[in-house]
């Protein structure tokens, strides 16, 4: 992310930084929305980085030309980039199915542990298996979508447009999904799994569906990220940036609320990527440690929000359908909605 360290002294500099920042935030917002879908049915995915990484790598190796010289990676078929995105989504779905089969039927905590583990093992595979994805050298020269059609300096606008269009599409998709009968079933399962089962819902299948949908979107975000940055390596997909960062966005913005997820991405993203901008104006003792302090504050943000504002900046709306009238106990601020959910999660 260090490429974001630019001076804001000039107008051009400010525009450059803003465009880059918004593109990155849009990609993270897609991740946050994807996580929100999984979380909305009570799936605790601590391995966002794994799905993000799989999407990025799959799309990269499929669209890159065949390896030359010291490079060594599989595939390299040079397929069109949109197809790469598609395969990234398929890859995310496959990983979700593989992980979901052993864990989704069991206690909630097992999935959390399994997902945090799969992120670690995927990184170590990418790092150590020769001839798979170029090991720790990473994949370089991943082309951007339509990059050859646009003048060099203007391409960042295209990148921004791509990220925003995909974000909008994803937002539309998840909003439709949660407003649909399927989405209401997810919510019912989260709030009270036994009742949902009693009314004839196959809860495991619904949870698997949500897990897969979220994983596909995470894979898509990974693919967009890969084609945007041009270079990916196992280091890019750390637990901190790939997973906890997205969780912070969701908790801060408001879990269960799609607009909250996007808002959280903007707020937390600005905090994270904006820090380097003020680094030089900070006193030395702080400036040299700003990255550790930033990490500390991310952890603190999660805890503070859980303690004092568990519903996030934008709370989940209780009204599930426009055919339901706004009843007297419909709290549009949704205070305590996360607690209702958590209480029911414990009591089941």
């Amino acid at each position, binding site marked *: 992310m260090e490429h974001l360290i630019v001076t804001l002294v000039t107008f051009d500099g400010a525009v450059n930084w803003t465009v880059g920042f918004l593109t990155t935030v849009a990609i993270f917002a897609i991740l946050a929305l994807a996580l929100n879908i999984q979380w909305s049915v*009570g799936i605790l995915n601590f391995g966002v980085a794994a799905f993000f990484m799989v999407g990025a790598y799959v799309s990269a190796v499929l669209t890159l030309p065949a390896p030359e010289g010291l490079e060594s990676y599989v595939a390299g078929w040079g397929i069109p980039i949109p197809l790469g995105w598609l395969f990234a989504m398929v890859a995310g779905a496959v990983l979700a199915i593989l992980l979901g089969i052993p864990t989704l039927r069991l206690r909630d*905590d097992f999935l959390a*542990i*399994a997902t945090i583990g799969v992120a*670690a093992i995927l990184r170590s595979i990418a790092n150590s298996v020769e001839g798979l994805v170029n090991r720790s050298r990473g994949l370089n020269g991943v082309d951007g979508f339509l990059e050859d059609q646009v003048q060099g300096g203007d391409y960042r606008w295209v990148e921004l447009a791509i990220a925003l269009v995909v974000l909008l599409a994803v937002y539309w998709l998840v909003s439709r999904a949660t407003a649909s009968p399927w989405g209401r079933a997810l919510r019912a399962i989260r709030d009270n799994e036994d009742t949902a089962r009693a009314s004839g819902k196959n809860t495991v299948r619904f949870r698997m569906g949500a897990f897969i949908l979220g994983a596909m979107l995470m894979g898509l975000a990974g693919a967009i990220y890969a084609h945007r940055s041009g270079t990916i390596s196992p280091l890019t997909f750390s637990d901190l940036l790939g997973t906890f960062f997205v*969780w912070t966005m969701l908790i801060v913005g408001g879990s269960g609320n799609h607009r909250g997820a996007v808002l959280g991405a903007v707020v937390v993203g600005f905090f994270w990527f904006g820090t380097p901008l003020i680094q030089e104006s900070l006193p030395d003792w702080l400036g040299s440690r700003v990255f550790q302090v930033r990490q500390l504050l991310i952890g603190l943000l999660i*805890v503070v929000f859980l303690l004092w504002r568990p519903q996030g900046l934008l709370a989940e709306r209780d009204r599930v359908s426009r055919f339901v009238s706004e009843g007297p106990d419909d709290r549009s601020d949704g205070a305590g909605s996360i607690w209702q959910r958590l209480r029911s999660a414990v009591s089941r």
Partner: protein
Amino acid sequence: MGLTLVFGVLGIADFAHGDKMGWGMFLAFFIVSSEGANLGFAGGRFGSLSFGWGLIVGLLVAMIGVALISVVLERLVFRRLRVSGGGFFVFAIASLGMSIMLRAMIQLIWGPSNFRYTPGIHPAVEVLGGIKVKPDHFFIVGVTILAAVLLYWLLYRTRFGKAMRATADNPGLAEASGIDTDRIRVGTWIIAGILGALAGVMLGLQAEVRFDAGFRLLLPLFAAVILGGIGNPWGALIGGLTVGIAQEVSTQWINTGLKPGIPFVIVIVVLLLRPRGLFGQQR
């Protein structure tokens, strides 16, 4: 063992346990390092072991320190979350946040470099049949057995242990029968903190002192806990041994870089075949 205790008794998957180990590791390092030497610790060695009194003092400091951290976090965060009705999800996410904070603090204080308790190479001595073992390893194994025996005694031979197990089985019932569950929780955190610090120092002794060493161990730890059955200290010990041996032996056949994957494979296999673990009770 500390992790399984918290998991079993309090129902919290403490993702910060690894980083608490990291803190134990670094607190002990602080004592044996040059800063500590200025205070009059360090120096001296026991026979062929690679450390002296300094490390024993360091171990005590680490245990107290980590137990304190655990209790403070319980009071400041977990108890409040419990009061406001938070469940497993909130605890897990909060412990993740704390894990990030603890790790960032280690980096802030000690920087990102790796350290060793005692510089230099420590030769191994030959025991039966040409197997070479470092003297330190005898110490580590000895301490582990001692800790396991003490924990067993505490859990099954004292009133406190009985109360702890009761709280694990049914917190509501335990409270109704007059057990101060709040005290039990704090006690559990203290024991878990002490065990975590112990493990951290042993890990630092055996390998390097690194800021993310504890976090890297988190998955093998959870693998051990799940394999052994959640909440079962003996299971955790056996599970830990199994996971550790499996990891080391696996390098005979597979790429060393893939070693971190072994615990993961174990977790998945256990979940598929026997989700309650080897020694777990049916819930």
